[in-house]
């Protein structure tokens, strides 16, 4: 990763996200879901920032909040210092060009009724209406080649491609507007291992040639170890540990991160020996009080049940855990 | 009404027989009757019940037609007479009665639906 001066590109400050709970007159009231609880992160230029966590931990919700698909109910999101979470589509226009997204399901992220050419031309037609057809087609071809796609694909429909090929088309679409920041929501988890390597390589090459910054969402820790340079581990809408990849894998301090890393199946034939976590996985609807992990944490004491720990530096990584602060762990 | 249900149940069954839990039922070695009637059929009831509820309305409307064809002096025929004689109070009365019938039938349908489909809770029902 090019070690640029650490100028923050995207700042996430105390973002909260609530779903449901609204008891409209006609629509029945749904239970209140606390998807994100005051999340604060900073993504620097050139980073491959990875967000890791199990299903239901809010990593995709945070990604959608950052890109503006679901504005957060509280807190700010800043892009190069100015707030973007409260802008209308019109005001967001300059930022939309700089921020793009790649999605998880290759079979649903391309409009089945539009040819690859139409899908790729659309962003240009919207943002650069003055651009001539020839210029647009030239740009589309250039980006397709840069991502290693065969321009002959342009006239075909999405159902004629395999998962891996579609994901590469999806990446090409994200690169059409020459963005600086790309949110990738589990781009490879729906693909086979051999195809995952192809797509990851394409993303790495694009990052180097276009000086991109990635917010990479995944539940696969081995991909994080390979791809990311900074990692945030999330649990039930809260960031429990934040660190450079090397430190996190070398010296994980938060009990949940330790359990998560031990659960990853290793190939060295050492069999299944993982840290057992007691209790049942709570849902975001009945969020435990204090530290969200206290119901399953072997080191939890009554302080953990009452107060919500803040992210603090502990020498190796930043953790939100009283046991680490008090040296009990 | 009958053909509608036949077609609906057929398309639902074709879809549900491909679901994993039906294949799991076969994998458990259950006898075909149990798989078809208990596992598959109970799941097809869900859409059938909801569509059935709405059909009650159409049934009432067609009473007007059938009664006037066979000249039976039923509610529908009464309504038709009222319309021809522009007897507005009778028309209004008829509509209120019909409205009442719909409210009652739809509530019954909702109750049946929650009984058939446990995943749906009535608002305020203790699980």
């Amino acid at each position, binding site marked *: 990763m090019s070690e640029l001066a650490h100028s923050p590109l995207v700042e996430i400050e105390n973002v909260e996200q609530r779903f449901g709970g609204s008891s409209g007159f006609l629509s029945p009231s749904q239970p209140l879901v606390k998807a994100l609880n005051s999340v604060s992160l900073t993504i620097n230029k050139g980073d491959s920032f990875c967000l890791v966590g199990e299903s239901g931990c809010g990593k995709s919700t945070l990604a959608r909040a950052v890109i503006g698909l679901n504005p957060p109910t509280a807190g700010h999101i800043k892009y190069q210092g100015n707030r973007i979470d409260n802008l209308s589509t019109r005001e967001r226009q300059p930022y939309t060009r700089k921020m793009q997204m790649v999605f998880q399901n290759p079979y649903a992220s391309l409009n089945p009724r539009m040819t690859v050419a139409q899908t790729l031309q659309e962003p240009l037609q919207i943002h650069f209406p003055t651009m001539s057809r020839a210029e647009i087609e030239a740009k589309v071809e250039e980006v397709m080649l840069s991502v290693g796609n065969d321009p002959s694909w342009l006239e075909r429909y999405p159902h004629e491609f395999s998962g891996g090929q579609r994901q590469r088309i999806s990446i090409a679409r994200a690169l059409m507007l020459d963005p600086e920041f790309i949110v990738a929501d589990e781009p490879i988890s729906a693909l086979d*291992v051999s195809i995952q390597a192809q797509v990851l390589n394409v993303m790495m090459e694009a990052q180097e040639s276009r000086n991109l910054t990635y917010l990479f969402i995944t539940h696969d820790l081995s*991909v994080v170890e390979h791809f990311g340079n900074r990692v945030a581990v999330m649990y039930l809408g809260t960031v429990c540990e934040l660190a450079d990849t090397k430190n996190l894998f070398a010296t994980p301090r938060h009990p949940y991160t330790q359990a998560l890393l031990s659960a990853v*199946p290793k190939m060295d034939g050492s069999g299944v020996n993982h840290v057992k976590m007691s209790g049942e*996985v709570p849902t975001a609807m009945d969020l435990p009080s204090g530290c969200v992990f206290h119901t399953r944490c072997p080191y939890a004491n009554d302080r953990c049940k009452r107060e919500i720990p803040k992210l603090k530096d502990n020498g190796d990584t930043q953790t939100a855990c009283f046991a680490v602060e008090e040296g009990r762990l | 009404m009958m053909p509608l249900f036949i077609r609906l149940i057929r398309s639902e069954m074709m879809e549900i027989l491909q679901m*994993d839990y039906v294949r799991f039922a076969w994998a*458990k*070695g259950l006898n*075909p009757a149990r798989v078809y009637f208990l596992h598959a059929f109970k799941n097809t009831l869900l859409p059938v019940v909801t569509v059935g509820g709405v059909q009650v309305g159409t049934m009432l409307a067609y009473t007007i037609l059938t009664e006037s064809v066979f000249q039976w002096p039923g509610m529908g025929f009464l309504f038709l007479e009222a319309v021809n004689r522009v007897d507005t109070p009778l028309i209004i009365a008829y509509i209120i009665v019909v409205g009442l019938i719909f409210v009652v039938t739809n509530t019954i349908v909702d109750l049946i639906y929650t009984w058939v*489909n446990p995943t749906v809770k009535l608002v305020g029902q203790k699980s």
Partner: protein
Amino acid sequence: MALLEVKDLQVEFPLGRKTLKALHGVSFSLEKGERLGIVGESGAGKSVAAFSILNLLTRPGRISAGEVRFEGRDLSKLSADEMRQIRGNRISMIFQDPMMTLNPVLTIGTQMIECLKAHRDISDKEAKELAIARLRDVMIPSPEKRMDSYPHELSGGMRQRVVIAIALLTDPSIIIADEPTTALDVTIQAEIMSLMLDLCKTNNVGLILITHDLAVVSQVTEKMIVMYAGRIVEQGETQDIINNPKHPYTRGLIKALPQENLPGARLNQIRGSMPSLDAIPVGCAFNPRCDFADENCCKNLPELAGPIAHQAACTKIDTLPEFTAVGARK
């Protein structure tokens, strides 16, 4: 005579204009209490192999050739009724997505008791106690209460444990698990895998684990098969294949894993993609994606060669470069 012997199994899907061949002659065997892993990417035919053992192929799939000998009887030739006595009783199955495997409108209790009643003529009370005992075996808290709850009231991990309990109800001799933990999170997957491992060992139950995850197979199974485009390309002792893969495809699969590469470096990818069933290349199906392929590979089909403990279907085995063992990097 092994417990289960599959010989030259072929499966076809006649679909109107064209007939797709999903399995081109697959043979493997399983001893009592042995754990076999079947690895392959989507479309390799691993699930088809699993379902054809119990003759549960989705229409219009059917076994077109070969034998599935279980305790001496060829399952592919049995009548529906005879087959029913085996399914869920001697051989049981675990599906991939716990959300879909349990019937949403029936209670857990009903779905467990019916499986017992179908194979044992015991009273409802006895069946209920046996079911509760099994639920306790799979470490489900307060099993009595769980019997009357519906599937949607349980979490993914809990549901998969119920499915495992159902599979163990009738003390089968083999459990076929089709990607049992793919839909689960990594911490829950570790718990389910260790649970299945212990239960198989204590009850001496054979396990056929179908997955695309090499790491899970290396942790749980003793023997493994690697499948590609409807054929077995490599089979043998799991640790032997993981540490010293012979077939170029298996090597590519292992090297493509992020664990095996220096952080930040390009992953060594396998070019191209899995051929679809109606466009399988002539000769060795892997030749368009293989760096070592020559015209011989593009003409005739390589046979499985080598010692029983570790065979591979490739004529270039001895010319391949030395393979750095797993974990050498750490």
